[in-house]
C-alpha cells in the first residue's frame, strides 16, 4: 500500500478497470455502527491520520450570531470530560497528538493525527471533544478575547477589508455576505448555550464525511470510528442555503487605507463543481491567471511591466455560489494601470480563448502536478474528504485527470467566452490608488 498514488497512475496508463482496481487502494470502510470512511492503508510510518468534515458551516450561523460556529469549533479542544483546558492540551501535547476543529463557510472540519502507540487515547480525546466539551467560562472568555483581538487587527488588514467588501457586494443579503468570524458586536453576545445548541444541531452522523490514511486495518478503523463518532446525534438540522448568483457586476469600490501600495480583488460569476464546464474553466483559468509565473496576467503585469510582485486568479467554488476571482498589489500610482491590464487580458481571453499550445501546457501542468498534492498522510486524507464532500466516487482521482485531458480547444474557447467578461468585473481596491474611480 505504500505507493498507492503510483499504482493509481500506472493503472491510468494501462487502462485497467479503474473503479475495481482502485477499490483495493482506497478502501471503503463501514463501521459496525454504520459510519462510512475511505481508507488508504500505509504502515511505512507508525502513525494514523483521520480527517473529517460535517456539511454545514458558518453559513449556518443564525442572523445576529455571526461567528457562532467558528467559536464553537475552536472551543471543542479547550477542555472536555474530566480534563480542563490545561489537562486536555497537556495530554495532546505530551503524546504528540494533533487534534483540531475549524469552521468553513459550508463545513465544520476536524483533524486527528496520532502515533500508532496512541490510537486509543487519540480517539477517546476526539470522542470527548465531540461528546463532552466543557465550555468552561474562563476558556470561552479567553477565546472570545482572542477573536475580538483578531477582528480588531483585521480592521486594518488590506486583504480582510477587501474580502469583506467584496463579499458584501457579491452576495448582497445572502448568508455568504456575513463575516464567518463575526463582528465585535455579535462575538460579544455569543453565549455558551448558543454554542452547545449549534454543536448539537450541526455535528451529527448523517452529515459526517471521514477518511483515514495510515497504520490501521478496516476492522480497527471501524471500531475507532464508532468510538469517536458513535455518540453523535443521528441527524443534523441544517438550514437550507439558497443558491446565489454573484452580484456587483461592473462596480468598483475603493476603501481608503494609508500606505504606498493598493491591494485589489476582482472577480465575477464562475462555474460550479457540478457544471459540465468545470474542467474547461479550470484550464482557461490556469492560462489566464492560475498558472503562477506562466500565466498571461503574471507575464504581462509582473514580468513585462514590473507593476506587481504577484497577481493570480482562481475558481472559488462554494456549495451555493461560484466565482472566478483574482488579486494583486501594486504601487498606488500604478494600480489603476495594472487593473487596465487585467481587463485587457480578461477581454482577450474571453474573445479568442487560449492557443493550442497554451491548452496543452495547461493540461500538462494540471495533470502532471496532481500527484504532488499527495504528500503527507493528513493531506491525502483531506483530499479524500474533499472528494467525498463534492459527491465524487472512489475513482475520482483518476476521473479528474481524464476530464482535464479531455478538454478540447473548442471547449476551452467556448468556456473562456462564457467565463471571462471584463464588463462584469467587480473590483474592490484597498489603499490610496491614483486615478481609480469608485462607482459607488
Amino acid at each position, binding site marked *: 500500500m505504500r505507493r498507492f498514488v503510483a499504482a493509481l497512475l500506472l493503472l491510468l496508463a494501462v487502462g485497467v478497470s479503474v473503479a475495481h482496481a482502485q477499490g483495493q487502494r482506497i478502501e471503503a470502510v463501514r463501521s459496525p455502527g454504520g459510519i462510512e470512511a475511505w481508507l488508504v492503508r500505509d504502515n511505512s*510510518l507508525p502513525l494514523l491520520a483521520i480527517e473529517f468534515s460535517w456539511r454545514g458551516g458558518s453559513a449556518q450561523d443564525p442572523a445576529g450570531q455571526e461567528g457562532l460556529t467558528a467559536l464553537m469549533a475552536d472551543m471543542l479542544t479547550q477542555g472536555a470530560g474530566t480534563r480542563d483546558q*490545561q489537562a486536555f492540551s497537556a495530554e495532546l501535547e505530551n503524546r504528540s497528538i494533533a487534534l483540531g476543529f475549524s469552521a468553513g463557510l459550508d463545513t465544520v472540519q476536524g483533524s486527528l493525527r496520532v502515533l500508532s502507540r496512541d490510537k486509543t487515547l487519540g480517539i477517546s480525546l476526539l470522542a470527548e471533544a465531540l461528546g463532552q466539551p466543557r465550555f468552561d467560562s474562563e476558556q470561552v472568555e479567553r477565546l472570545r478575547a482572542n477573536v475580538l483581538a483578531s477582528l480588531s487587527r483585521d480592521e486594518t488588514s488590506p486583504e480582510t477589508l477587501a474580502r469583506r467588501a467584496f463579499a458584501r457586494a457579491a452576495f448582497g443579503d445572502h448568508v455568504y455576505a456575513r463575516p464567518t468570524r463575526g463582528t465585535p458586536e455579535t462575538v460579544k453576545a455569543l453565549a455558551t448555550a448558543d454554542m452547545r445548541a449549534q454543536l448539537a444541531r450541526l455535528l451529527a452522523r448523517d452529515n459526517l464525511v471521514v477518511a483515514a490514511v495510515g497504520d490501521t486495518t478496516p476492522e480497527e478503523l471501524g471500531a475507532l470510528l464508532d468510538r469517536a463518532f458513535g455518540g453523535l446525534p443521528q441527524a443534523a438540522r441544517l438550514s437550507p442555503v439558497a443558491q446565489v448568483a454573484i452580484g456587483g457586476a461592473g462596480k468598483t469600490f475603493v476603501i481608503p487605507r494609508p500606505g*504606498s501600495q493598493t491591494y485589489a480583488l476582482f472577480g465575477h460569476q464562475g462555474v460550479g463543481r457540478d457544471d459540465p464546464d468545470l474542467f474547461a474553466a479550470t484550464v482557461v483559468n490556469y492560462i489566464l491567471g492560475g498558472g*503562477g509565473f*506562466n500565466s498571461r496576467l503574471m507575464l504581462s503585469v509582473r514580468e513585462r511591466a*514590473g507593476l506587481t510582485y504577484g497577481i493570480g486568479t482562481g475558481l472559488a467554488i462554494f456549495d451555493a455560489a461560484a466565482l472566478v476571482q483574482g488579486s494583486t*498589489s501594486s504601487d498606488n500610482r500604478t494600480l489603476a494601470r495594472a487593473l487596465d491590464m487585467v481587463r485587457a487580458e480578461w477581454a482577450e481571453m474571453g474573445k479568442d480563448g487560449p492557443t493550442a499550445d497554451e491548452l496543452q501546457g495547461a493540461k500538462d501542468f494540471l*495533470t*502532471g502536478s496532481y500527484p*504532488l498534492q499527495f504528500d503527507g498522510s493528513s493531506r491525502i486524507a483531506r483530499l479524500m474528504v474533499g472528494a467525498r464532500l463534492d459527491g465524487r466516487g472512489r475513482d475520482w482521482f483518476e476521473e479528474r485527470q481524464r476530464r482535464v485531458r479531455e478538454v478540447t480547444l473548442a471547449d476551452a474557447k467556448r468556456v473562456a467566452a462564457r467565463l471571462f467578461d471584463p464588463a462584469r468585473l467587480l473590483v474592490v481596491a484597498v489603499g490610496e490608488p491614483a486615478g481609480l474611480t469608485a462607482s459607488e
Partner: protein
Amino acid sequence: MRRIAWVLAAFLAAAVPAHAQVFSPKTFELANGLQVVVVENHRAPVVVQMVWYKAGAADEVQGKSGIAHFLEHLMFKGTKDVPPGEFSRRVARLGGRDNAFTGWDYTAYFQNVASDRLESVMQLEADRMANLVLSEAEVTPERDVIVEERRQVVDQRPAAKLREQTSAALFVNHPYGRPIIGWEHEMQGLTRQDALDWYARWYAPNNAMLVIAGDVSAEAVRVLAERYYGPIPRKAIPQRVRAQEPPPLAARRVELRDPRVRQPSWSRSWLAPSHAAAFGGVGADQTDALDLAAELLGGAASSRLVRALVHDKSLATGIAASYDPTSLDPTSFTVSASPRPGVDVAALESAIEAVLRDTLAAGFGDAEVAQAKTRLADSAILVRDSAQAGARAFGAAFATGRDVAYVESWPARLAAVTTAQVNAALRAILSSEAHVTSVLLPKPGS
C-alpha cells in the same frame, strides 16, 4: 509527574529506537566538489530537487543590500540554451512547481515534480548553475518587482517594519542586522553588473549542495548528477568573512507607532549562539539544550510563559519563545507576546519579566525536561510523513556550517541533554540585560 516513566516506556516500545536516524540519507561528492544528498522516500511517486548555495544576504558587501535576493529572482531569466521565461514554463509543462528563497546564510532553488521527470529538472538547474545570461531588458523590470515585493511584505505591514528595525538594533555590527530583501534605497541602485558579480563570486558546484528527496534511488541520482552537474568546473570561492558582534552592553528599546496597528504586540530578543558559533559563554554544542529551554519556556501549550500569561494571569492572547540555532553566526532568542485587548503593554512586560526571573532562579525540573525531549523526539518521526521536509534540513545545515551527520544525530544529541545543561544555557543567555525590547503600538488619535 508520575506519568513520565510511563510516557518514556511507551515511546521506547513504539519500535523506534531512541537513537534512530531521522532521514537516513545517502551522500556522495562529485569530482567538482558538489555535495549530493539523496533521501529515498517511496510513499508517493514524487520528488523534490533542491540546490543550496552557501551565499546569502549576510555575505553581501555593504551598500549592496538585497543583491543575494535580487539574483535569486534573476536566476529565472535564462541561459545560453534556455531563453528568458522559459525555465518556469518548462517546469510547468513537466507538471512541476518551482520556486526559490533567500536567507542570510543561503540561497536555494527547488522544483517538485513527478519522479519520472527528475532528469529534466536536473538538467535545467545544472544549466543555470554556470550559464546564466542577463540582459538589461530583463533586469530593469525585475528590479521594480523586488521593490514592489518589499512594499508588499514590509512597508504594508507595520509588524514587519518593526522586525526589520529590531534586527538592526540587535545586531550592531553583524550583517544579520540588514534585511534580506534589502533597504529600498540600496535596492534601487542594484545593477546588472552587481548581479553578475554576485553570480560569478558564489555560484559554483563546490559552493553548493544538491538534495534530492522522494521516490528515487541514490544510484539513479548519481548517474544524473554526474551527467548534468559533473561537467561544471569548480571555482575559487572566497571565504565568508563577516563582521562579528561586539559584546552587547546596553538594553535597547524599539517602538513603532502606526495608524494601521489595532492591537499592540511586544517582544524581547537576546543574542544567542548558533549551531556553528558560540555566544555569551554558551557553546555551539549547547544549542540543543537552549532549544529545549525555548520549548519549555514558551514553545508549547504547557510551557511556563503560556501557562502564566495566557491562562493564570489572562494578560496575553498569545506568547511564545522562539529560537532557531540554524545559522552560521550567532543568532537571537526571542520572547514575543500579544496583550489581551485592554491590557497595558507595560503590565504585560513586567509580568513576563517576573516569569523569566522566577524561571531563571528555579530552573526547569527533570520531569518537564523529559517530557519536552519526548515531544521533540516524536517530531523526528512525524517529519518523515512528508517526503520533502528532509531536503530543507540538509541544505540549511550545509549552508550554516554543519553537515548531514549533524542533522542525523539530532535524536541522539537530544537524548543526551541534561536538565542542568538546559538551565545553564537559558541562564547564560537570558540573564543578560543587553537585550532589545520591541513594541508595536497604535498611533495615538487614530
